């Protein structure tokens, strides 16, 4: 077992660099001659633009240019694409509206980009921005997705009737209806999944440089994978080949899905860099980030479970209204549909599932993926609905889940929404969680809390996540002249610890010390293809690529070693980083062998370069799952909630690095508790202004607001990849909102509160208690 061995809690090798301020983020890059860009944004949620005057702005010393939508149109710059084809229930296609980089004569949400000012300094650009005169003809706005569907609602897009983007379905409707018709009991629930601001620690930034001689751009920007950007911005926006763009992703301070997408600012910096022949940088400030980063969630969902007389789940039926915002972001329509509904069956043996999802335009910031991306929303619905069903049937909620779980003997399990689970031992994971949480000891704790005037509640959720992302991944292993092994990967760490996990994998396979392995990422020129990071895909995708590449390296090494050691290739064995002749003590370690081969080639002798690149097909995605258990204490006098106990029993498959897995789960749980208890994105319904537009009014959870989070790993190896891993990046955020809300409702149910939407702020909790029929 080495320091970097698999399954070891190796401390993250990237942390010393990042913690000492030695990270290099996009805004840290300062090329000579750099100009700075500032985006002028709409103060209106809906308005026609009747005039833009930039003359005074252009007179500000240091201003290089001011661009408006008219300039982009003149130069043939395309809009931002939505990458999701979709067919409606009636066979028609979803609404397809443009997403102009700068306003095309109208603005559709507060923060919509209208002009781009480029100057020698940010200060000059801001001075100039204030001198741009824009005439707005204000229009009525709509921000609530249900209100937007009403007949008299203002239209965000005149050509999109009823603001309806799509009306999509999945599942066997007829079979579902039949099962509902024969059900002994039907339980219904309507829930709101609140909109959240992503709030990554590092705000977005983009630095574009243009080389006129080659006609190529270099775009340095904080992404979750530059390849997706390159493939869009070239063909779709600038109408050139994708390879005209080199996208460099330096260190990234958090993405959570939000940094996957192509944004207006990417285009604007590239456009200006080409026009002006100088590097152009834009960096978001925090206030701007609230208005220009995609938001997450924002669904209103009705769900129904049909059960038989024994409490067995027959069918699930849902209708979800999903707020898309004013424009369709890259994957906006994908999130509540293909991504979200794929896990609706969760770990339960539903005979049929039918889901109808209606996407809606509103005058709000576009919505797209946020940690979990559709799966948290579906799990939240199902787990809330199961608790409601248990209450209605008078069956213990643990027992109800237990009674309906798919068993290991039923694997692989085909769900009614087209997923095939390869593995899972849900009962074992559930029982492990219950024991660790001391579920049975709750009554005593509740009595203690009651003595203090507090309502104690316990909640659980059993989540199932379906990882996603690109269907292949690439790895390249190169033996560098300085004695290091460089591994080039197509995923993109935004803080997850890839540099450590991949080192562990590589060190294990090649038998080299982990300190001699470097992970290279984030440059589309040196890494020709990559799927980026999102959907918790990185370890199982990139891991397979690293395994495949390492295997080829070893095969090449055997040939090279046979030459060096003057033995038949068949007599060469590889173990613990050393090629040796079987049955002898003669051999050579892999680093020496690689260096010797490089030397031979340099000196004109024959040699075998061990460097190798392989692309691994990712045939099947994975299904991390687990049990979240929360205990909350409610002050019925004020409505204040405190999460006092939290246990996760997680099956993320084999844990390559349990320390990193637990850290990932901790982060996800923090975000889930944030959504459940604190975070609320509020738009003024009349003006469309974002009322929670800063951290003074948008409450993020802080470390002190969170309990100790005890994560138990129950490893049920994934059967569809050789590493047996399932993914852990999103899991914490998927399981935590329903666990916390179920706990809150468990506490409040004794006072007659049976329904409450997130976030459970003190005011909401207190108001629910006042409105309850049996309120004290």
């Amino acid at each position, binding site marked *: 077992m080495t320091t970097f061995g698999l399954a070891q809690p190796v401390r993250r090798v990237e942390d010393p660099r990042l913690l000492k301020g030695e990270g290099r983020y996009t805004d840290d890059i300062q090329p000579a001659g750099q100009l700075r860009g500032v985006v002028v944004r709409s103060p209106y949620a809906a308005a026609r633009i009747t005039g833009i005057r930039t003359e005074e702005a252009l007179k500000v010393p240091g201003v290089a240019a001011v661009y408006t939508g008219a300039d982009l149109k003149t130069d043939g710059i395309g809009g931002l694409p939505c990458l999701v084809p979709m067919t409606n229930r009636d066979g028609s296609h979803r609404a397809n509206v443009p997403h102009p980089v700068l306003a095309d004569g109208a603005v559709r949400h507060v923060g919509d980009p209208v002009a781009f000012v480029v100057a020698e300094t940010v200060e000059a650009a*801001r*001075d100039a921005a204030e001198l741009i005169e824009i005439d707005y003809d204000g229009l009525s706005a709509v921000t609530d997705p249900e209100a937007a569907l009403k007949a008299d609602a203002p239209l965000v897009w005149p050509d999109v009737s009823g603001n309806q983007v799509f009306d999509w379905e999945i599942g066997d409707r007829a079979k579902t209806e039949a099962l509902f018709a024969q059900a002994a009991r039907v339980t219904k629930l309507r829930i709101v999944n609140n909109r959240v601001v992503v709030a990554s620690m590092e705000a977005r930034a983009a630095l574009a440089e243009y080389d006129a001689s080659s006609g190529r751009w270099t775009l340095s920007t904080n992404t979750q994978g530059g390849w997706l950007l390159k493939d869009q911005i070239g063909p779709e926006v600038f109408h050139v080949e994708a390879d005209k763009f080199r996208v460099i992703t330096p260190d990234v301070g958090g993405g959570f899905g939000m940094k996957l997408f192509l944004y207006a600012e990417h285009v604007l910096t590239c456009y200006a860099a080409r026009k002006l022949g100088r590097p152009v940088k834009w960096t978001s400030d925090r206030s701007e980030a609230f208005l220009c980063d995609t938001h997450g969630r924002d669904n209103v969902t009705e769900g129904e479970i049909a059960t038989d007389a024994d409490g067995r789940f027959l069918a699930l039926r849902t209708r979800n209204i999903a707020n898309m915002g004013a424009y369709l972001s890259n994957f906006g329509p994908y999130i509540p549909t293909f991504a979200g509904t794929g896990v609706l069956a969760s770990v339960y043996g539903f005979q049929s599932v039918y889901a109808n999802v209606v996407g809606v335009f509103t005058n709000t910031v576009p919505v797209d993926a946020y940690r979990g991306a559709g799966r948290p929303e579906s799990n939240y619905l199902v787990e809330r609905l199961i608790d409601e069903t248990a209450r209605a049937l008078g069956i213990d909620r643990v027992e109800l889940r237990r009674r309906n779980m798919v068993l290991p003997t039923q694997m692989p399990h085909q769900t009614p929404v087209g997923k095939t689970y390869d593995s899972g031992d849900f009962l074992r994971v559930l029982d492990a969680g219950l024991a660790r949480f001391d579920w049975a000891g709750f009554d005593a704790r509740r009595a203690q809390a009651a003595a203090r005037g507090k309502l104690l509640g316990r909640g659980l959720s059993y989540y199932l996540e379906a990882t996603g992302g690109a269907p292949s991944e690439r790895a390249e292993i190169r033996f560098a002249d300085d004695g290091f092994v460089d591994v080039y990967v197509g995923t993109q760490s935004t803080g997850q610890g890839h540099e450590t996990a991949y080192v562990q994998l590589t060190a294990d396979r090649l038998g080299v010390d982990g300190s001699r392995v470097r992970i290279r990422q984030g440059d589309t020129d040196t890494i020709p293809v990559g799927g980026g990071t999102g959907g918790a895909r990185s370890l199982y995708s990139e891991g397979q690529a690293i395994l495949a590449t390492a295997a080829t390296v070893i095969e090449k090494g055997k040939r090279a070693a046979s030459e060096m050691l003057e033995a038949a290739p068949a007599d060469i064995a590889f173990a613990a980083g050393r090629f040796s002749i079987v049955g002898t003590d003669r051999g050579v370690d892999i680093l020496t062998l690689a260096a010797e081969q490089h030397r031979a080639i340099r000196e004109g002798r024959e040699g075998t370069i061990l460097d190798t690149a392989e692309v691994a097909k990712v045939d099947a995605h994975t299904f991390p799952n687990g049990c979240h258990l929360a205990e909350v204490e409610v002050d019925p006098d*004020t409505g204040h909630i405190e999460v006092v106990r939290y246990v996760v029993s997680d099956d993320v498959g084999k844990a390559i690095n349990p320390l990193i897995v637990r850290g990932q789960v901790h982060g996800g749980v923090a975000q889930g508790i944030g959504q459940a208890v*604190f975070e609320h994105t509020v738009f003024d319904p009349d003006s469309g202004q974002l009322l929670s537009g800063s951290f003074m009014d948008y409450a993020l959870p802080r470390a*002190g*607001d969170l309990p100790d989070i005890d994560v138990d790993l129950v490893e049920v190896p994934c059967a569809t990849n050789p590493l047996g891993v399932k993914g852990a990046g999103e899991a914490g955020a998927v399981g935590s909102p329903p666990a916390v809300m179920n706990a809150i409702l468990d506490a409040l149910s004794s006072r007659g509160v049976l329904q409450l939407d997130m976030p459970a702020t003190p*005011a909401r909790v207190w108001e629910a208690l006042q409105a309850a029929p049996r309120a004290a």
Partner: protein
Amino acid sequence: MDLNTIEELMTPGLRNELPPWRTGDAWLAGGTWLFSEPQPALRRLIDLTTLGWQPIAETPDGLEIAATCTIADLAAFGSDSALPAAALVLQCCEALLGSFKVWNMATVGGNICMSLPAGPMISLATALDAEAVIWTESGRGPERRCRIPELVTGPHENSLQPGDLLRAIRVPLRALHWKTAFRRISLNPIGRSGALLIGTLDSATDGFALTVTAATRRPARLVFPGVPDAGSLGAKLDQLILPSAYCDDVHGSPDWRQHVTRLFAEEIRRELGAAVW
């Protein structure tokens, strides 16, 4: 952020060097709000820190806290002082949502003049029955004095006229010896207050006062000759703070704020009453 419309920064060393007030001027103390968002209407900043006001001065009449006293300085006083009211000083400082960087720059005067419902320096000064000392007419005119509830009249609203300068708040000596009780609630423990109530008890006279802030659009101080009974306290709350006076924003509804105000008021009454009964 940089205030890119500022054309001039004045740094007066003496009161008589304060320039005549003109449109586009702003007093600059800590600058934590001024520099937090665009201020396109501003052209000139008049830095008050160069006047060299002593942050906190203990006088025979009480305590004079300069408008330029930072939260950090005030918190240090609250930690170090043996005065009974010192604990309240520290509690109010800790109610100010801000990092140590903000604490080191943000000022007592800035927080009061910002006149937000949740401004904890407003809560503190109101509870201690402090008097605001205002230099009028560009800071060079006659001195005006008023209590904080007369100064802060609503969210972002106060009775300061253009060119009026808050010089200090003066806390009467007797108030420094009051027993205090503090209650606060917010979306998360370190967050903008949804309601912040302070009770004071003058042991010498048994005089009781309840200060209501953050829940209401402007501060209110309810004074009683002694610790009232629950009914009297509730009645006076309802009489002096109408339902329309409670804030309605993302931090909580008016109904909830009225409820927690009543709840905290009663808790405070009991806590301080226990010292008398």
